[in-house]
């Protein structure tokens, strides 16, 4: 089990398209992945869970991963949150 603190750098926050891409990326790993904001946590593979956290640009979130590819999963997802996708 590993975790990582990330400051979100997505101009529109974790919304709409970015949220979809984030969940798609998370789903490509076999590890259990969680996204935590404040006291609330969500399954990073659930679009409903991720969107219900309503993560805005500049907010700090914690990523957790548990499984065989946890390290790679954390790196990839953290990079996504910090730089956005395109």
């Amino acid at each position, binding site marked *: 089990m590993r975790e990582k603190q990330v400051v979100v750098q997505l101009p529109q926050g974790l919304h709409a398209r970015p949220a*979809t891409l984030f*969940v798609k990326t998370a789903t490509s790993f076999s590890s259990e992945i969680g996204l935590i904001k404040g006291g609330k946590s969500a399954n990073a593979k659930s679009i*409903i869970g991720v969107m*219900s956290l309503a993560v805005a640009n500049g907010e700090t979130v914690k990523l957790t991963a548990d499984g065989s590819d946890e390290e790679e999963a954390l790196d990839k997802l953290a990079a996504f949150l910090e730089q956005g996708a395109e």
Partner: protein
Amino acid sequence: MGTIRVHGIGASAGIAIARAQVWKKQDQKISQEVRSPEEELARFKTASELALSGLATLYEETRLRLGQKEADIFQAHMMLLQDPELIGQIEVLLAAGNINAEAAVQQATGELATLFSSLEDEYMRERAADIRDVGQRLLSCLQEAVWGNLQGTAREEKGTSLDAVIVVAHDLSPSDTAQLDTGLIKGFATQIGGGTSHSAVMARALGIPAVVGLGQALEQVEDGDLIVLDGTAGLLCLRPGEEELAFYEQKRADWLREKNRQARWAALPTVTKDGHRVEVGANIGHPDECRAVQQVGGEGIGLFRSEFLFMNRASMPDEEEQFQAYRQVAQDMNGKPVVIRTLDIGGDKELPYMNLQSELNPFLGYRAIRLCLDREELFLTQLRAILRASHYGSVKLMYPMIATLEEWRAANRLLAEAKETLARAGIPFDPAIEVGLMIEVPAAALASELFARDADFLSIGTNDLIQYTLACDRMNEQVSGLYQPFHPAILRLIRQVIDAAHRYGRRVSMCGEMASDPLAIPLLLGMGLDGFSMSASSVLAARELINHLSFEEMKELAEAALKLEGQEQVKALLLERTRVQINA
């Protein structure tokens, strides 16, 4: 039963004549029977797979027929359907026993939808509808009922000898309209909805006639009734008599012939016979209308009304939401110019969250730029959103209702402030964004030279300019005869604005209704107007007309028209001369 005529809002032009197919969402009889938890879970899994494959087909068909963006919604639905959180909740409910799959789906999607609709964010609230849509789809699959979509029903009907139909419904959701098969559906008529509702926009994109907002009268229509739908006039005629039917058949034939003939102009530029180039662009009120503009080859968006973002809601749209809408238009137009007009709203519109007082004289009152300059935060938010969108295409900014140079300067000071805020935050925008203003107050028209000095462009808004100049409310039938676009005063004002703009090398366009009037176009062209902006459905006719005219001859025509003493004389001259032109 006799003929009934119902008036509504013409949402998409054209004439359709066909039998009615009254479409009701299937009243689903929800099964109450509860089997063992394992059986219920298996039923849920089967239904889920069925729903998923249905969505995959829908996605692919929509992508091919309407495009990627329209199809995206179904991909989002597929993702929701596979969501571990949703599936997890349903599984937990089922494992507890004593509940069937139908009830578990209803409960889980209902709770999630409620959660989403309580969020502050507009985008999230819209997702609540998606979750409900997915829930409905699952229920239908559980019932083993055919998903009650239009296409399916229409195909069946066709198999049993009925030809294409006009769909009659209370309302149509985005997924309903996306599924319409234009080969089988000749048009649609709905009880509710307005000209910028989603279904209206979609109908225009599909090129089928539609009339919306027909009200309760529509309930008199029964399956198989013969209907005439006039999307141009906003009329539905139920069970027409023989004479009426013949009249509309002729009108439909004319419309189709005209549509086919005009289609070839979509790919051509707007150039007069003697090589003078002008721009014919479109006015839009919603980002989704870009599609229709592209289809007719509009040379840009001459007026993007930003009001739609502010109407029918409980709170102000934030910068992000506005930015997304403006950016969508900038990107959809692929580098063609997009003129975004800042908020033009005032005392005659209901916006509860703005706390506007009702006024005795709203058109002379607290509205448009006057209100924006007074509520700086609101204005700055919109300016930042527009600036941010300018990074993604060719965006221009336009202020409405400017009457004095002080207003113009105050607006630009706030624009400079918005630019500075973005620059400090390192957010990209086009620093050289062009800024112009609407000339719609007579004072601004008379003093247009003062504005032409430092504006990048001018745009004449004739609807208000005529109304203010002739002191007549065109909605008031008793004085609407005074609403005269060809009054010598109006022609002189337009001429003066164009000349002033050209003295300073600025472009000047027109975005009022006059710009699409076939009688006015030759005159405006002759006066030197550089751009004409109108509803997308008028673009092809306008381009065709201009390409048949000679700029040099229209200049002479304009000179002659400006010497006449009244609207009637001007119209008579234009009628005579343009007829000669086109036949020549």
